[in-house]
């Protein structure tokens, strides 16, 4: 059987993916430090600012993260067929059918992907949408913590979270969603790559998938 090389992910989607993934790793590490600074010292006047630097790194990564989320929302509307939101939500018979076939696939009952889909399967697609929604709340709480005196962030922050402390609490809990998501995500990507050699892992670098 001959393999066919197909263009699947645009360059913007791939850039967004890695900006998103790498910024989240940085945000989790620096976020943990901000929550519970694991260094301490009795030295004064050492001209080192571990907490200030960790916060600075957190905010820089936060801006990268925000840019990635904005790019993703743009692609949900203006991206190619695989990238648009309609391909990720259970709104068409084709998509609903794919939920069940993916469940059967993941429970080792059935083999092979649905041949009519080039992009995400529905379970993955819906999880990504939930993750982007979580990311929007994460960045609103983050900017509210960063700029509480600015009217726009004060407005959104108070309306959604009610107080700085509650914003921080939700911000912290959402971090766990991203970490658990990343673990399952990387496993399933590799698992799918093993099950069906379509070049899934490399597709997020090259944008190309192989079908037959």
């Amino acid at each position, binding site marked *: *059987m001959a393999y066919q090389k197909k263009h699947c992910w645009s360059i913007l989607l791939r850039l967004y993916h890695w900006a998103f993934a790498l910024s989240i790793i940085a945000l989790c590490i620096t976020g943990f430090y901000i*929550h*519970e*600074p694991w*260094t*301490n*010292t*009795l030295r*004064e006047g*050492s001209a*080192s*600012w*571990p*907490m*200030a630097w960790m916060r600075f790194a957190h905010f820089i990564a936060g801006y990268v993260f925000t840019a990635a989320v904005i790019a993703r929302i743009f692609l949900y509307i203006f991206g190619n067929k695989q990238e648009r939101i309609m391909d990720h939500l259970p709104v068409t018979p084709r998509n609903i059918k794919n939920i069940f076939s993916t469940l059967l696939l*993941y429970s*080792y009952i059935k083999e092979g992907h649905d041949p009519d889909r080039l992009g995400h399967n529905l379970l993955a697609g819906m999880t990504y949408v939930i993750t982007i929604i979580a990311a929007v709340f994460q960045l609103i709480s983050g900017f509210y913590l960063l700029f*509480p*005196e600015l009217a726009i962030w*004060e*407005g959104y922050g*108070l309306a959604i979270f*009610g*107080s*700085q*402390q*509650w914003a*921080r*609490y939700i911000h*912290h*809990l959402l*971090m*766990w969603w991203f*970490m*658990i998501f990343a*673990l*399952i995500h990387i*496993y399933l990507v590799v*698992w799918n790559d*093993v*099950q069906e*050699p379509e070049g899934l892992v490399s597709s997020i670098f090259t944008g190309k998938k192989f079908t*037959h």
Partner: protein
Amino acid sequence: MADTVNKTLDPRLNRRGFLKGCTMAAAALGLSESVVPKMVEAATSAERPTVIWLHFQECTGCSETLLRGTHPDLARLILDIISLDYHETVMAAAGHQAEEALHDSVEKNAGKFILVVEGGIPTAENGIHCMIAGKTALEILEEIAPKAAAIIAYGTCATFGGVQAASPNPTGSVGVDKLVHDKPIINISGCPPNPVNLLGTILHFLTFNRLPAVDGLKRPKFAYGRRIHDHCERRAHFDEGRFVEQFGDEFHKLGYCLYKVGCKGPETFANCPVARFNEAGVWPVSVGHGCIGCTEPDFWDTMTPFYDRIPNVKIPGAGIIADADELGTKVLAATGAAIGIHAAVGVGKRLIKGKSDSDE
């Protein structure tokens, strides 16, 4: 009656104390000293505004802080520039006499008086959890609030419900602005608030004829415009990574940052580090205890445990109360285990079926 109260409480306020108080208020408001004479003029020449002070569900700590601190000038000053017609704790009258004074004053000054509310208002079971002179707090507020010119909710109970509103809030206690919607309301939160902030608000009102600018929670910006953390004297230790690990340890004795023992300064809006308390120039962090966030909404629920950074996770029904990170680690570990099992099943199936990869 007000004058009687005033004189018995105010035997010593001299011009020096008066000017000092006005200067403090101007500083707290962030105004230049050139407005001090204006303030003094407003405070002395304008007709003293009538103030009616209602107590509901509370501990009276707010009034206590105002009256019995080591800053007599401040309390005297407030009592000097206002005409306090009704205040259950300090008034001489009692019983029917007191009730009469209240109603006379409300009628006489309708539309002109400032209403200060101290304490939360219980709303459950038609408000029977707080009754004064046979009426519920709810009824009293409904009767008096519409006649006030403006309302000052004083203390965290009157602003956000306070301790009795802590989960599960059995009496349905709420702050004034949940019940009164058609009056200018200013929230001076804190458990207790700094009296300087009340003085500043009143002087602002007298001098400029309007209430000061407020934030999204109706708190005056001059006092609640910045977080404690952004004006804290221990902030350098925070940025440079020097933290108290435990009360009484080496780091604590050296006066380092209290972040790791749960200081809520980073989440709390108040001017404590600037205005300070009791004329001795102290505030909680300066004496070695973290901020507990008492000026913030629902602080009894959101700021506890006081010595941890964030609240525990409660899962209703399951009876689970756990540290967020402990729970997160468990969920992550369970996810990892599930992944392991899933992968093992896959490998097992391949072994059994003896499927090779060369079946393309």
